[in-house]
């Protein structure tokens, strides 16, 4: 179980500092989303991401959990749900893939937050961490019918 090893290592090494460092920024995002009153939840300062052809990669510890996003590596987890709705991008939380989908306007949703678009994959991953409250994702294969 490499993800357990990774989590243990991260929580010991950087979780205490990196996790705290980004918490304030993410709360700002959540507040902006809550008060927007529209279907869009763009955090201030990140609207430019909507118009990018592809979001940037990221790898950070947020609230003690490792979130990673970037080009799909294509290594052994394709075809789990019959499609690649991340448009070539994969998001992982502690190594487990988060099913993501890009909307026509460039915003993103995930299977955890399916009715509230976020402007960037990083904001989407952080929102999932908040919702999960420490729970692990279920592997995508078990979701497919």
């Amino acid at each position: 179980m490499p993800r357990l090893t990774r989590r243990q290592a991260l929580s010991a090494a950087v979780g205490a500092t990196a996790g705290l460092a980004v918490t304030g920024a993410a709360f700002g995002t959540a507040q902006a989303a809550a008060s927007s009153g529209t279907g869009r939840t763009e955090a201030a300062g990140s609207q430019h991401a909507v118009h990018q052809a592809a979001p940037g990669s990221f790898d950070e510890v947020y609230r003690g959990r490792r979130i990673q996003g970037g080009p799909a590596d294509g290594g052994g987890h394709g075809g789990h749900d019959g499609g690649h709705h991340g448009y070539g991008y994969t998001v992982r939380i502690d190594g487990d893939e988060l099913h993501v989908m890009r909307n026509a306007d460039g915003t993103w949703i995930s299977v955890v937050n399916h009715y509230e678009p976020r402007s960037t994959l990083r904001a989407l991953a952080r929102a999932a961490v908040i919702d999960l409250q420490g729970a692990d994702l279920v592997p995508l294969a078990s979701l497919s019918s």
Partner: protein
Amino acid sequence: MTVRKNQAELTADEKRRFVNALLALKRNGQYDAFVTTHNAFIMSDTDDGDRVGHRSPSFLPWHRRYLIQFEQALQSVDPSVAVPYWDWTVDRTAASSLWAADFLGGTGRSRDSQVMDGPFAATSGAWPVTVRVDGRTFLRRTLGANGRQLPTRAEVDSVLAMSTYDAAPWNSASDGFRNHLEGWRGVNLHNRVHVWVGGQMGTGASPNDPVFWMHHAFIDKLWSQWQQRHPNSPYLPAAGTPNVVDLRDTMRPWNDVTPADMLDHRPHYTYDTAA
């Protein structure tokens, strides 16, 4: 004949029968099959690919057929039961009788969002969440968290005033009634309610929360109200649209029903008030 009533008007006996029918479907496995179907569609419906249940014109007829099927399953347990609707423009706080312990139970506790009262609380033992996106097996809610507000009647009326059913590109970027009702554009009605409830209602496996059916019964009623206001506005698109269910195309997963078959709700059920 099935009459769908406002949940706020149900008698104690009607609430008890509805809850008992839900619990019976949960016990016999039929309930979770409905959750699985919804999650499969929500994960496969994409803006630039095949789309049937969501982010497309067939969002409304698909959910109408889905609710009819669910209502028939409830009626196989208790023929007196119909799916109530939740008018969230009126019953818009966590203090509504909808969330009382004799009906759906209330919001979740702060530590883990777990619903702690009512027939669907994990502590009752009758409502295990088995079709799920994460490891948690208990029903969760965060009603109105972070100061979120449910849509107002004025916001609903602004969407009902839109005379065009749907428009190209027939997805989450569309103008028109369907996408504004669904909530990907504009004041945001349907999507916002899912987010307001929170917990499983915010995920692809949203039918895990029984309020899903009452929310969608009200969305369905708003479609009927829109039809009455715009009797000359047809379902769109009419024909020949790639990846999209045209008026007379069949819809998955049933493959024997078209949007045209679903335009009139009255052969299937009526409402307690003028739709």
